[in-house]
């Protein structure tokens, strides 16, 4: 630690940019995140039926998130690489604890009640799994050998299966994706990719028959023909596509969306919030949000590319792609091209733990971005 600090000071002799660097803040990333949070609070105010309670709570969580992000960014990458196994183990144990002592609602058991707060271990795993896999692969030869691939599969699948049991298929798939992204970026051989693809196809019937619950199957069926069940499962999709479609080019105006304000739109302030944005701000609003997301992902990929360690590269790349996956899955399900899975829209959807987790990820990215250049000794 002492030596690190010494090096860092040597490399950062003053200046604005330098100062932010010494504070481990990536300014472009920070500005984009602030903009996104602003948009999010604006839409949330309308989506919650102009309920300031939600907005205040969300703003508070965002502040906590920013704090957590800055905190995480202060630790050097070597620290994360070294202790990633510990985080992973803690996550795994709390997942097991959920299995036995968890609390929940609507038939799902996802939370641990810690007395002062509720904690969702699967959220922690969204960061811990890619970190663990990155740490594992970062130290190994590339492209990963068969035994490494196997190890990664085990690392990933243990938490994934535990989360499927809760059941929380959406989160499980996203965590699996985050592990997969790491190994893909690490250069997984094409033949493994092909095998994985074929296995995935083969797994679909198995999943359908043995793993998926009835309500999950229903969601898939509903996607295929929402009109079959207009007042039941199809309702959400019909109402959200109607909200989006009726927004048109420029939207109905802030807080003037009839679908959302009159409660036709379900879950309007959580998973389906993009429909509120689309209804009230139109395609212009959707494009603007997507542009912000694109900038954010772009910046993250640049950080990944410039990372000095393989661990940094992998974790940064995986987090960026996972982040994109969130957006893709959420926007697809709300607009009716994917079945409904409980995936919130980052920074816009209302939701506690999820938002803090997001910021933790960006804290890692800031840490990577502001890593001091290593002194390279050319032999």
């Amino acid at each position: 630690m002492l030596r690190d600090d010494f090096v860092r000071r040597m490399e950062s002799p003053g200046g604005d940019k330098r100062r932010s660097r010494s504070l481990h803040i990536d300014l472009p990333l920070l500005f984009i995140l602030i903009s996104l949070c602003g948009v999010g609070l604006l839409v949330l105010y309308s989506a919650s039926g102009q309920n300031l309670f939600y907005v205040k709570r969300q703003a508070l969580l965002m502040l906590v998130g920013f704090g957590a992000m800055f905190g995480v960014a202060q630790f050097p990458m070597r620290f994360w690489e070294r202790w990633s196994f510990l985080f992973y183990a803690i996550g795994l144990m709390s997942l097991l604890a959920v299995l036995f002592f968890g609390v929940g609602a609507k038939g799902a058991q996802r939370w641990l009640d810690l007395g002062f707060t509720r904690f969702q271990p699967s959220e922690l795993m969204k960061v811990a799994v890619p970190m663990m896999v990155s740490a594992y692969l970062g130290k190994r030869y590339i492209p990963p050998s068969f035994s490494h691939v196997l190890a990664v599969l085990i690392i990933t699948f243990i938490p994934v299966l535990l989360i499927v049991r809760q059941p929380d298929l959406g989160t499980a798939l996203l965590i699996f994706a985050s592990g997969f992204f790491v190994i893909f970026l690490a250069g997984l051989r094409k033949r493994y990719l092909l095998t994985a693809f074929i296995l995935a196809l083969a797994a679909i019937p198995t999943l359908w028959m043995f793993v998926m619950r009835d309500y999950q199957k229903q969601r898939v069926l509903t996607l295929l023909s929402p009109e079959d069940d207009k007042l039941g499962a199809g309702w959400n999709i019909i109402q959200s596509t109607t909200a989006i479609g009726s927004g048109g080019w420029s939207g109905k105006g802030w807080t003037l969306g009839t679908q959302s304000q009159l409660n036709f739109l379900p879950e309007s302030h959580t998973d389906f919030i993009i429909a509120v944005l689309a209804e009230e701000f139109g395609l212009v609003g959707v494009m603007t949000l997507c542009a912000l997301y694109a900038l954010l992902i772009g910046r993250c990929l640049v950080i990944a590319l410039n990372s000095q360690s393989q661990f940094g590269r992998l974790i940064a790349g995986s987090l960026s792609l996972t982040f994109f996956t969130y957006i893709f899955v959420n926007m697809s399900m709300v607009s009716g091209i994917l079945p409904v899975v409980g995936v919130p829209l980052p920074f816009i959807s209302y939701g506690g733990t999820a938002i803090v987790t997001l910021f933790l990820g960006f804290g890692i990215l800031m840490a990577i971005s502001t890593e001091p250049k290593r002194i390279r000794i050319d032999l």
Partner: protein
Amino acid sequence: MINDAAFSDPARERRIFAGRLLISVVLVFVTGLVVMARYVDLQLTRHEDFATHSDNNRVHVRPATPSRGLIYDHNGELLADNRPTYILTIVRERSDDLDELLTTIGGLIDISDNDIKRFEKSLKRRKPYEQTPLKYDLTEQERGILAVNGYLLDGAEVSARLMRFYPNGELFGHVIGYVGRINERESQAIDSVKYSGTDSIGKIGLEKFYEPQLLGEVGSEHVETNARGRVMRVLENIDPQPGNNLTLYLDSRLQRVAHKAFKDERGALVAIDVKTGGILAMVSAPGYDPNLFASGISQRNYNSLLNSPDRPLFDRAIRGQYPPGSTIKPLFGLIGLHSNTITMDYAIDDPGFFVMEGIERPWRDHNSKRGGHGRGVDLAEAIIESCDVFFYKMSIKTGIDLLSSYSEQFGLGRITGIDLPGERPGIMPSRQWKKGARGQSWFNGDTINTSIGQGFMLATPLQLAVMSARIASRGKMVTPKLVKSIDGEILASSEASELLEINSDHWDYVHRAMSDVVHSTRGTAKGISKGLSYKIAGKTGTAQVISIKAEEEYDSSKIDKSQWDHALFVAFAPAEDPQIAIGLIVENGEHGSSAAAPIARLVMDVYMKMKAGSHQTAVAEVIN
């Protein structure tokens, strides 16, 4: 564990990573584009569809109920009113568990099995998201209880409606009729748009006859509702047009007097304004309270009305068909004179019976002591004393064809065309009628029976009143009607096309004879002449309920009252310048002179005093 890092090749790692990242970027770009394409498709290409769907979602058109036209009597007294009432309705779709909701409501306020039964019945007929009434006429207390517990009652709603109210209750029951809930048969016949704001319709009486005028035009309310159906705001309003108000010729004071005069008797009275044909009073006793029906009558109440031996639901005035008895004698006499089959000098000897050639059985004279009316009985005397034998003989001379065809012109045997539904035509028998109805040819015996208003002949009290008015007006085509004006616009008065040209001497003769029925010492209705300040012309009648064999004597003390003769009376007044004509019957009243005539006199007294302007005291006098 071997640490691979020792052999790591940072450049190679970076290269492979960059390659993979490039692939990822391409994939991100492509999938991102797919999602964007979806939003462009929804928001631009299919925007119109979704905009429409979104509007259909939130905008609902609610019918705005027009208030039903009011009904007033001649003097502006309200006979049919609309009164605000509160009903508890349920929207099936908004209740998650209907049974539980009903149980909850049942625990709060009193819900009868009848309410439940009716509710379940209408539940089957309702349109989606329609309010189905559960309980009518909520009390203030019940409304309070429901309001306080509103949070428990998702799907239930208390709403205000206008309900028909008849302030006079039974008094105008048969005339005004009532409104009731639209039944299945009616709902198929009506224009569902016109009736979208109401669940009631005129069932009978004026309420039915003038349904189109009374209904009004339904308005609409475009409201914005949220997903739970709660109305958030009103977007556009088209006000309903209230129904037209009816003003009747009926005078509630006269009606009240007539109604009261029947006491506990069964019967009917119709009083007509001779000049206009307007119905001044129309009573069928006993009556019923139409308010029972307006608020949804219970099966028990309905059954008790339906099965009552007095048949209160039966409108005797227009549907009761009785043998007119002697009340048709003035008309038949007039026909005899007019057709020249008899003259004013024509007279007969009455031994008390009449024997026709070839028929062994004699026809008795019902209205004389043994020995008959004596010698030299002319038409006047035959009317005054109600001599049957004169009319037996005259009818054979005149023949059924003339009697029948002229009588029809005076309103017998056909509906009068009054503005009420369900009027019966009675029977004016003729050769063709008997052939058609009985498949038999006409015999002189039939003519003789007809000549005293018995046999096949049947007439409603309304027809008797019309006949009386047409005689009173000396042959004017008096047509009865109840409604004088609609929204102040007076309906075309059918004043007086001439019915037929009859010699005025004949009119004078018959009018005088009818006047003498009341005012002569020999008149059958002389009992009502006492203290009369004006002249009444009339004719009593008695209609047999059971046939008495010729050799038997009718003795009321030996038979049940339900088989006593009906008492009838037709009259008009004042005799010199007739204003009011009356036809009335008292079922099983025995004698027209004693049971029916006094009622007519009472009504006429009040009418004459009203005309004279001192009606206030007149009514008070009679009623107290």
